[in-house]
């Protein structure tokens, strides 16, 4: 059974239909890349999977481990093992990174991790993502550079240990060095217990995080799926020849 299964999903934003019957399945241990031109509905899919209230599911299903989650709140989905690395991480003034992460870790694991153990894990991951100690006392995403925000997203993924991770344009706005750090982070987390869906406009990140499957999206539905070779083909030819 696929960990994440999307069946005939239709989604509207402010009454406008964006997804028009999308099917996609991601199993544990697999890495999928979802590509497509701007406006094809990639980010809409990411938000709809996570349960953002502005993205109204008008038909179809999102199944997590066989359970339809379309009626569940985002926090319930997260606690079932779903993670979304956001394209535009939100700044949260007054809430320290440490406090936020500890609350999130305890909420998703539904335990009360001892502070010491939590700090050890956090420091280790911060070192991996080359984030300075001083981030510990900073507020969530406040004043972070674009690259710092993306590194922090993947750091959260590392701390929360999800079973399905959706990475929404995590590569956008990153320079080569930051892209490497982020990609190495994702690669470290890949394994038999994690399914990854990388949403991207460009093939760049796929050179570092090699996908098992590549899908191309146009106007709210998948138009082609294939192996990693499809990404290379797209790099050469662009998207236009796949327009339905």
């Amino acid at each position, binding site marked *: 059974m696929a960990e994440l299964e999307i069946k005939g999903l239709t989604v509207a934003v402010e009454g406008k239909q964006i997804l028009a019957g999308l099917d996609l399945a991601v199993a544990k241990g697999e890495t999928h890349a979802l590509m497509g031109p701007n406006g094809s509905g990639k980010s809409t899919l990411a938000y709809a999977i996570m349960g953002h209230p502005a993205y109204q599911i008008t038909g179809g299903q999102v199944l997590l481990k066989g359970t339809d989650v379309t009626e569940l*709140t985002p*926090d319930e989905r997260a606690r079932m093992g779903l993670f*979304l690395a*956001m394209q535009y991480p939100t700044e*949260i003034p*007054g*809430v320290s990174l440490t406090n936020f992460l500890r*609350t*999130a870790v305890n*909420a998703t694991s539904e335990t009360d991790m001892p502070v010491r153990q939590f700090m050890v894990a956090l420091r280790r991951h911060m070192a991996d993502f080359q984030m300075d100690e001083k981030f510990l006392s900073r507020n969530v995403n406040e004043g972070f550079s674009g690259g710092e925000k993306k590194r922090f997203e993947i750091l959260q993924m590392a701390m929360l240990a999800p079973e399905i991770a959706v990475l929404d344009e995590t590569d956008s706005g990153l320079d080569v060095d930051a892209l490497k750090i982020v990609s190495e982070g994702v690669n470290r987390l890949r394994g038999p217990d994690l399914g990854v869906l990388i949403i991207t406009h460009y093939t760049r990140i796929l050179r570092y995080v090699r996908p098992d499957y590549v899908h191309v999206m146009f106007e709210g539905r998948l138009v082609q799926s294939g192996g990693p070779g499809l990404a290379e083909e797209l790099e050469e030819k662009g998207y236009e020849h796949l327009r339905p």
Partner: protein
Amino acid sequence: MTETIKDLSEQGVLTLSARAGEPEWLRDLRQEAFKAFSDLDWPDRRVGEDWRYTDPARFDLARPILDSGTAAPAVESALVASVDDRAGSIRIIDGGVTAATVCAEAAERGVIVSDLAVAAGEHPDLVRAALGTAVGTDEKFAALNLAAFTAGAFVHVPAEVELDEPLTVTVQAAAPGAALPRVLVVLGHNAKATVYVDHVGDAAQTVVEVVEVVVGEGALANVVTAQDWGGHVDHIAAHTGLVHSNGDYRHFEITLGGRTVYVRPDLKLDHRGGNGELLGVYFCDEGQHVEHRSLIHHNASHTSSNLLYKGALQGECRATFFGNIRIEPHAKATSSDQTNRNLILTDRAKADSIPFLEIENSDVVRCGHHSSIGQVDELQLFYLEARGIPRPEAARLLVFGFFGEVTDRVDLPGVRETVLGEVEREILSGPTTLMHQRRT
């Protein structure tokens, strides 16, 4: 005293003074204040700005003035209760001082914590030089207080004395009626002290209060005033710092309880190089009406001020912040900044935020103001929820973060924990708060 505020007479004031055994100069001061009080009109919503947002009828003037202390069990706010080591403390219950103590070490260094009427006799020079200087008689209720204050606290920290432990003043409402407490805090030059003034109790009272703080040259005063009343108290107060050269007045206003709280946290920078920081948090819920009306007066050169007030509202209630910065023509090279932010947690809550500037000269280093009224940010909520944090917990984090910006600027014992603890209690007690809402 059988008189009410409404029918207060000169004779009533004289009787009050005589009964307290006050010296002649204080009796005369009260008499002058009574004259000023008589000459001023009662507040009228239709006249001027001062009462545009708060109906003066909320203050029942027909209640009898309480002129003695009540033998009631002493109550303390969570804030003051959290302070274990105190340099001294004084308690006013209704119309009388019921206890005043100063620790031996502080007493040895000349620190005075005393009933104001007693201090007026024992330390006439100290009291006379300060009483009425920070809060005079130019406003009806302030004049009323100086004319007829029934119980007063006097705190004096001599020059060069630095106190590590806070001094506490508790004002308690125990019996129904009208109470007119007055708190006078004086710091000599280069003195350093922290004073907590808390307001507790839940009797049906009209409280007309003055807290005046005179900060000597180069002195540092940390003053925390906390309104932790029950829902039957209507409180009008002037909380004012008068700052001498290079003095520093840091005031933190915490308004949580009371049916009506109308406070004027004012700052008088009358001398060169004076500095003031006015911080405030308020949590307004069902049935409450809160107004903070601040005047920061830059009346000398090289003075600086900084104001940050933040409030959250839930249920049917109203909170107004009105802030004015006045910079006089001779007050060159001043710097000031004023920020008020309001967080509306539920429908039916109403906030007003009115920043105001009167700048009379062009030689200003900095003068800014910021104001906002908004709801909890849905994007922020989503971000936290997407990390597995349930909505009530996410909202709590955001409200804490909102107030954290203010409490992080205060490094005084008990303040941060108490404020956030009280905010949490208020949030959880709200009947229809965001904390309990499910997304529809």
